[in-house]
Every structure is written in structure tokens, then in C-alpha cells.
């Protein structure tokens, strides 16, 4: 393990753990952006430049802002004093820890995961574009359709229908 | 077409930009501390105390009647009346303000003090660049800083000052005439003189 990987891993885990554990919801999202940025840096470290930058643009630039807006729109003063964690939080922690234990054991015992790093493959934008336009053109189109549907659906769900009900 | 008005506006600002370098009369800004607009007569800033004659302590018109202190809406005037009396400019014995302070950081330049003063002792100044690095002391004007001569008053508000001077002169003349008449009547009571018609003194020579 290199130093850069360790730094990024600590950053990511700290950010996401803070995002799930802090009291103030806005602080949670701000910590989460740190975690997302760490993940993006991990992608860059793995040589997937395009994915890493897309991650920053989508998660930090859009999802985090969206979440923050949603938190501020649903904020109510009485929620400031209510408990942060649900009543069965200990069970949740146990389940998560168990899942991690199982996954970690599987990973450590697997022979396939002992691979050493092969030489850097290049995933240039050109190659990604070629792949998107040839081999993966159908998923791309479906993705476009999905995003359009999500756009319309989100607007329709979030729209205030009080005007119509009158 | 969108943007037509934008281009028109941009042409206008460009004309102003280059015009300001070409023709000097476009630039109306005065370089303030060095250049100043001529003072207009109606300008008012803060009150000052009018003095007749030379020595400011002797010649202050104020008799410490404290009307201005009571009338001042923001209560920025502080007067301490003297215990003894001193002769004023006319030689008459009067009270005088032992302390007269105006906090011009509080003063709102309403001019009420000048209007209520029965002695025409407090008037409005035009001096406005009073900024000071001392936040409290620098803006608390004491008697000495407030005292200004009648000539100065005449120079900043000539019309008003002339009217005030005329009125004061008239009053003084009337008083003198009355005193004279009283004296003459006293002497006439025994001398049995004919009517003593007092002559009005000429206006404009108050002192």
C-alpha cells in the first residue's frame, strides 16, 4: 500500500463515517462531499480519469447540492432536539459490522485478490467515447431515456399540487 | 432582436468613457479637499456660539439661560451656569456659561437651538469637515471651540447676520432711549422741560 492510497482511504472513510454519524444534517452532507471527493481521487489513482471527474461533477456538484437543498426545505425546528439515530440503532450497527466481517473475510481469503498491479491501462476519453458509441450504444440510449424519465418524474413528484386541488 | 438595446447601451457607455478623457467639462467631480464648491448661504451644519468683540470669554452673547439645552431634541447640549456675573459686551452684568459643551456626534443639525435662543447667541455654522481620530473628545466641542466671532457669522451667513445685527442694534437703541428717557424724565420732573422726543439712532452701527 502506498502513502497516497492510505491518505485517500483515511480521507474517504473519515468523510463517510462522519456523514453517517454527525448530528447536524448539513454537516453530514458536507462531510459526505469530502468522502465523495476521496472516492473520485481513488478513481484518478486507479487511472480512470473520466470516471473520477464525472464523479466529482455528479456527486459533489449535483447530488450534494440537491441533498443540501432537500435538507433545508424539510428542516423543522423541533427536529433539532429529537434523537439522530433510530431506536434499533444497535441492531443496525451489528448487522453492518457483520456484513463487513463477512466481506472482509471473503476478500482476504480469496486467491484472486492477491493480484499485483498490472501496467497502467489507458482509458482515454477517445476510447471511452468509441466504446460508448459502438459497443455500449444501447445502454447509453437507455440511460438517456432513464435520465429524461427521472427528470420528469422528479419534477412531477416534487411539484406542489395545491393549485390543482382547488 | 435580442441584444439590440444592450449594444445601444454599450455604445453610450463607451461614448462616456472616451468622452471623459476628451472633454474636461464632462467630469463634474471636484477634487474635494483642494477644490471646493462655493459655500451657499443656506448651508447649516452644527451650532456655534457668537461672540461680540475680541476676547471670546468676555464677549460671549450667551447668558446661560439653558433654553437651548432644554429644547435640544437629541440632548447634545450641556450647559453649566456660572455662579457669579460678568459684564458682557455692553458692560451689563450677566450670568455666563461656565461650561458649554455640544456633542456634535449626537447633534442632528435641526437648528432648534438657534431658533429658540432669545439672545441670538447660538447660530448654525457651515464648517462640516470635522472628522477626528479621537472618537469622543474630538467630536465634543467645548466653549472655546464653539466660540466664534460675529464677523465670522457675518461672513458665512451675511443676510441673516445683518438682520440679527439690526435687530440687536434696534433693541439696544430702544433700551438706551428708554434709559435716556427715564433719566431725562427724572431731570425734567424738576426742570419741567418740554417733550423729550428720543431720536432714533442710525441702523447699522450697533457698537
Amino acid at each position, binding site marked *: 500500500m502506498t502513502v497516497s492510497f492510505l491518505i485517500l482511504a483515511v480521507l474517504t472513510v473519515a468523510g463517510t463515517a462522519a456523514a453517517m454519524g454527525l448530528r447536524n444534517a448539513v454537516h453530514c452532507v*458536507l462531510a459526505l462531499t469530502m468522502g465523495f471527493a476521496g472516492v473520485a481521487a481513488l478513481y484518478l489513482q486507479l487511472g480512470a480519469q473520466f470516471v473520477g471527474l464525472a464523479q466529482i461533477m455528479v456527486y*459533489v456538484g449535483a447530488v450534494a*447540492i440537491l441533498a443540501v437543498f432537500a435538507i433545508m426545505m424539510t428542516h423543522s425546528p423541533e427536529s433539532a432536539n429529537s434523537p439522530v439515530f433510530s431506536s434499533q440503532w444497535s441492531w443496525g450497527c451489528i448487522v453492518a459490522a457483520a456484513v463487513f466481517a463477512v466481506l472482509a473475510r471473503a476478500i482476504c481469503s480469496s486467491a484472486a485478490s492477491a493480484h499485483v498491479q498490472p501496467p497502467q491501462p489507458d482509458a482515454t476519453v*477517445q476510447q471511452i467515447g468509441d466504446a460508448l458509441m459502438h459497443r455500449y450504444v444501447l445502454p447509453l440510449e437507455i440511460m438517456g431515456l432513464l435520465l429524461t424519465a427521472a427528470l420528469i418524474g422528479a419534477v412531477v413528484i416534487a411539484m406542489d399540487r395545491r393549485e390543482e386541488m382547488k | 432582436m435580442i*441584444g439590440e438595446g444592450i449594444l445601444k*447601451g*454599450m455604445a453610450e457607455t*463607451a461614448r462616456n468613457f472616451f468622452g*471623459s478623457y476628451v472633454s474636461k467639462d464632462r467630469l463634474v467631480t471636484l477634487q474635494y479637499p483642494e477644490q471646493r464648491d462655493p459655500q451657499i448661504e443656506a448651508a447649516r451644519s452644527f451650532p456655534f456660539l457668537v461672540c461680540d468683540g475680541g476676547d471670546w470669554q468676555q464677549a460671549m452673547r450667551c447668558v446661560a439661560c439653558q433654553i437651548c439645552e432644554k429644547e435640544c431634541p437629541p440632548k447634545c447640549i450641556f450647559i453649566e451656569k456660572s455662579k457669579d456675573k460678568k459684564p458682557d459686551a455692553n458692560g451689563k452684568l450677566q450670568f455666563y456659561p461656565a461650561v458649554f459643551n455640544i456633542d456634535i456626534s449626537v447633534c442632528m443639525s435641526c437648528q432648534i437651538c438657534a431658533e429658540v435662543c432669545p439672545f441670538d447667541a447660538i447660530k448654525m455654522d457651515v464648517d462640516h469637515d470635522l472628522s477626528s481620530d479621537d472618537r469622543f473628545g474630538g467630536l465634543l466641542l467645548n466653549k472655546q471651540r464653539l466660540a466664534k466671532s460675529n464677523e465670522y457669522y457675518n461672513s458665512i451667513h451675511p443676510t441673516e447676520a445683518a438682520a440679527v445685527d439690526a435687530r440687536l442694534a434696534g433693541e439696544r437703541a430702544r433700551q438706551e432711549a428708554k434709559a435716556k428717557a427715564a433719566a431725562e424724565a427724572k431731570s425734567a420732573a424738576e426742570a419741567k422741560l418740554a417733550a423729550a422726543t428720543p431720536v432714533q439712532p442710525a441702523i447699522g452701527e450697533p457698537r
Partner: protein
Amino acid sequence: MTQAIDQIFVLTKHWLVGLVPVGAQPLCSAILSVAAIIIVFATLFAITTWLERKGLGRMQNRYGPNRVGPFGLLQPIADGVKSLTKEDIVPITADHAVHFLAPVLLVAASLMGYAVLPIGRNMVLVNLNAGVLYFFAVGSLMELAVFMAGWSSRSKYSLLGAMRAIAQMISYEVPLVLASIVVIMQAGSLSTVSIVNMQATYSGIWPHWFVFTPWGFAGFVLFMVAATAESNRSPFDLPEGESEIIAGYYTEYSGFKFALFFLGEYIGMFATSGMAITLFLGGWSAPFSFSFLTWIPSYFWFFAKLLALIMVFIWIRGTLPRLRMDQLMNLAWEFILPMTLLNLLTAGIWHFMPAGSLRWLVCGSMVVVPCILLSSRMKHKKKLQVRIYHYSE
């Protein structure tokens, strides 16, 4: 000789890097480049504040700053000293950590964009394969910084300003990216260096700048409008509309943090202008291929273009009044977005038509006709008309 002058900074850096041990060379090289970028653009920021105040003053028939130094040239230094010595006030209810981090993040995010801007020939910090994407990804960090500033201040004005700013930045990021996609389509690359290299060739004396094509010109104008909104400049400066919400999201900042916000905003403006130069105006290439023009070093051309764009920004700020929020949003979604989408189509048609006057005619009309139609429709709907005050007489 010409080459040496052109590459003087690159050669100097190589010489300096050669002085340190081999192991530290990459780090040293990076530090040198970053320091150079920060110093140069912070100086440009200082010059721009002076230029802006002077230019705005002259447009309003005033003198502008003229006290500190000759022609007021030392005014930025005086401003800097003033903001450094001012008291740093943090509201007692503010979220202290976030309040502190917001200006730092803003400046850092706006400086990060310069990593992919080719300032001159061979003068780019990193030639990223996905440079343009990197630029926009980093630009989206600024929204987060703005939100942090507005939210952590615990002030209504700050929060309203931040909300306005984020809504505006998100709305205009779409046309900003879409307007630059035409260039990416034509260049076939997301790397800023290869985009500039494509434009730095000449046919006759004319350069192959993308702005000299119908879709390039339309894209450039749309990009600049979106960039103006993205950097919160007048006439899109609603987030800091002084008459309504004091100073927007940095209402509660004072002293040096306020100066940092100012710096971040200007640095961001330079970065987007630099991107516009890279994408449409040929980057560091000379406007004509005359030998006396190409003799002038490449970085000079970049900064000349940058200063020209900054002056246009100042000119527009001196001319136009602030928009209303609904006008702003209507402009983005009803005019600029359809225009950018149509522009994509135009660029595609341009690519596949044979060169000639017919291509110019078709693509030119594809830009002009929708522009006229859309603007007349907007005028018809009275969306951009003069405001009528119903209740004031």
C-alpha cells in the same frame, strides 16, 4: 531567439528544477508552476480591481481612484493593507468551522481550474486527457463553497444570497457546458492543449479560431453570457444585489476573509475567461500569421486576450442594470438553452457539409433565424419587457 523568448519561462523552470536532487524534482516542478500561477493571477486580480474602478468611473464621468500613487495605481495595495488590518468578525451563532472553510474552499476551487489552462506554448500545468471536464468539475466545487458561506453565517441575507447564487450557477452551468461542447465535437478532444493546437494553424493569414465560424461565434457569445452568470457578474449579480440583500452570501464576512471571497470571485472570472479563450479564441495563438505578430511570445497573446475579455466584462458591468430573478431564469431556460442545443446541431451540419459559401449560408441562417425567433417570442411574452409598477404612482 524568438523561440527562446517564447519559452523563457519553461526554460527557466527546467533550469531551476535541475538544481534540486532528482527525487524532489517532480514536487519542485509542481510547486514552481503553482506558485507562478498564483502570483501571476493574484497580480492580475489587483490590476483588475484598479481597472474596474477606473473604467467604471470613467463610464460614469468620474475620475475613479486617483489618490494612492500615480493614477491611483497603488490603490490595490492600499485596499489589501486595509482588508488585512481590519478586524475579523465571526457572528456568534455562526458555524465556525464551516464559516472559516468556505472562503478557503472557494479560492482553492477557483485556482484549481488553472491547472489545465494553456497560458502559452508548452505552458500548461498538466495536460489532462479530460481537461475540459476537469475544468467544469472543479467549477462545480464553487457552488459548494458558496453554500457553505451562506449557510454557516446564520443570516437571512447570507442564506438568500447563497440560494440565489446556487440556483443561478446550476441553471447556467448547463448552457456553459453545452456551449463548449461544440468545440469538443469539432476538435474531437477534451484536452485543452490539443484544442488550442488545432486552432493555432493558419490558412493564408487567417487563423483557424473556432470563433470565426457561425457555430463558434454563437457558442462564444452564449458561453460568455453563461460565464458572466456563472461568475456572478453584473448584470447577473443578483446573489450580491446590494439594494436587496446587502452583499449576498458574504454579508457576514469581514476583513481578510471578505477579501478572499473577492479574490475567489475574480480568479473564477479569469478562469472562465481563460477557458473561453482556450475554446474559442485560439488560446495563445496570434490573431494573424504575420511574422511580426508571431514573433510576439505566446503568453503575451493569452494575457492580451484575457485583458480584452476582462475589459468587456467591466464595460458590460458599467452598462447594464441588474436582472430580476424570473428574467434571469427565463433567459437561461427559454433562450440560451435552446440556442446551445441548436448550436450543437449547427456544428454537426458544419462538420459534414463540404467547405464553401453554401455551408456558411446554411449554418449562418441556422444561428441567426432561431435567435431572432426566440428573442421575438420572448419579447412577445413580455418576459424581458420593462417592469410595470402597479402599486406605485
